[in-house]
């Protein structure tokens, strides 16, 4: 690139002496959202177009990214990008860019809420990273397979939606019959998210699936929580603890017994009445050895709806930086489409509409249980 023939805002050496010795290094454009790389594109002789339009080589779904925002090309051994007159600009080190600009290795530019970073990697490094991502995807599919299918018919129906904030999450839930009369449902939220939390979640799910709590009657919520507390002390599980809402519904009595460990209430909606929070007080599972957990119960009139959800569903941030809360979230429940198939996903979409772009800050889980 000849200096003086056009504006070059910055020019740095993109290839160090050590790099020059590694002929297998290639330049990649990495798309980063909320601190996580979400796509990688090799930069070659052919320019890459970047924008919101699905026809672009690099598609970025961001309202602040123009349909054709910029292009990136390899010129004379350097990566050069050029903003193509975008509405909201492209920024490097806080400066808006105009005209062709060299993007050195390990530097990035910002457009909307996304970053584009220039990385120089060997093909082998890229393949290893892709392999790791494939393994994470397999793990995600495995965790997802442990969640029960929605129940779309019968006197008690369950709809749910689950979205981890990272590749793997710390939320999980389950429900099903204990016997002809009793049904259980629970939602567990392990501290943190990611691989560590997901592994702990899988342990909890498997203990619960196999009823591997000696001497515990799974129809008694207090016993279940105390049994889990004995099996999962945080010192023996990497300092991890989890919150839990566990309930058992009796068809014959039309009542639900429930117990909570550090969890916000489940909410029972009866037609024409305000929502009722179902919660007992007690610390997270694993935090206090020998903790005794209280149990409570509530009637479940015909036509009632029970919602269980993780705190990731309501501890979210709006585009202007305001934190939403539980009261905001409750307004999305029990509406005209309450109890219908797909309701949980609609709730998720309603939450997403109210939050800043990008993934939610925490794992999102909602169960909607309908009682005839």
């Amino acid at each position, binding site marked *: 690139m000849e200096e003086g023939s056009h504006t070059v805002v910055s020019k740095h050496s993109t290839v160090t002496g050590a790099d020059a010795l590694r002929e297998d290094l290639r330049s990649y454009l990495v798309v980063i959202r909320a601190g996580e790389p979400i796509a990688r594109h090799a930069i070659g002789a052919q320019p890459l177009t970047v924008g919101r339009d699905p026809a672009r080589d690099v598609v970025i779904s961001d309202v602040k990214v123009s349909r054709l925002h910029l292009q990136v090309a390899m010129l004379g051994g350097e990566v050069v990008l050029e903003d193509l007159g975008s509405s909201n600009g492209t920024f490097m080190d806080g400066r808006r860019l105009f005209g062709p600009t060299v993007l050195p290795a390990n530097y990035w530019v910002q457009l909307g809420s996304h970053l584009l970073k220039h990385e120089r990697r060997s093909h082998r490094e890229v393949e290893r990273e892709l392999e790791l991502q494939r393994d994470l995807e397999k793990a995600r599919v495995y965790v997802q397979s442990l969640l029960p299918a929605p129940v779309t018919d019968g006197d008690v129906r369950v709809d749910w939606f689950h979205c981890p904030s990272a590749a793997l999450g710390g939320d999980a839930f389950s429900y099903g019959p204990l016997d002809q009369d009793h049904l259980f449902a629970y939602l567990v939220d392990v501290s*943190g998210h990611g691989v560590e939390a997901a592994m702990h979640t899988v342990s909890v799910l498997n203990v619960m699936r196999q009823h591997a709590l000696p001497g515990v009657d799974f129809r008694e919520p207090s016993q279940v929580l105390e049994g889990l507390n004995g099996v999962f002390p945080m010192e023996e599980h990497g300092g*991890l*603890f989890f*919150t839990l809402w566990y309930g058992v519904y009796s068809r014959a009595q039309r009542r639900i017994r429930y117990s909570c460990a*550090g*969890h916000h209430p489940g909410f029972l909606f009866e037609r024409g009445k305000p929502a009722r929070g179902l919660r007992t007080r007690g610390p*997270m599972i694993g935090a206090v050895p020998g903790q005794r957990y209280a149990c409570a119960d509530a009637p479940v009139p015909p036509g009632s709806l029970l919602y269980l959800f993780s705190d990731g569903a309501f*501890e979210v941030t709006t585009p202007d930086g305001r934190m939403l809360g539980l009261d905001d979230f409750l307004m999305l429940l029990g509406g005209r489409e309450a109890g219908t198939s797909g309701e949980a996903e609609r709730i998720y979409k309603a939450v997403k509409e109210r939050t800043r772009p990008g993934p939610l800050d925490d794992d999102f889980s909602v169960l909607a249980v309908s009682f005839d």
Partner: protein
Amino acid sequence: MKMDITEDDGVVKVGLVGRLDTPGVDAVETRLTAAVCPRGARTIVDLSGVEFIGSLGLRMFITIARTLTRKNGKIVLYAPQPFVAQVFETSSLGDIIPVKPDVTSALALAKA
């Protein structure tokens, strides 16, 4: 997340400002742990500047509290904002770590 640590009359006073989310905890946990745990310090933590706390923030405080207890130390949290106070109530954190409304009551408990 910002943190300042001072000491007065044998009590370590920690001031936190910002969000105790995942990056916030990452920013302060190691330094805070190193400042109080090895010597089993009597510690008070000013939460008036903390606008959010997630599960990792709770985990950080619980882990520090258990270590301090083993070393005859103590940690007292004080002046949580309403959102943080609600998280403490939901999680029953007060059953594990004392939470006081102000610095005077926190100091009194830390020195007891």
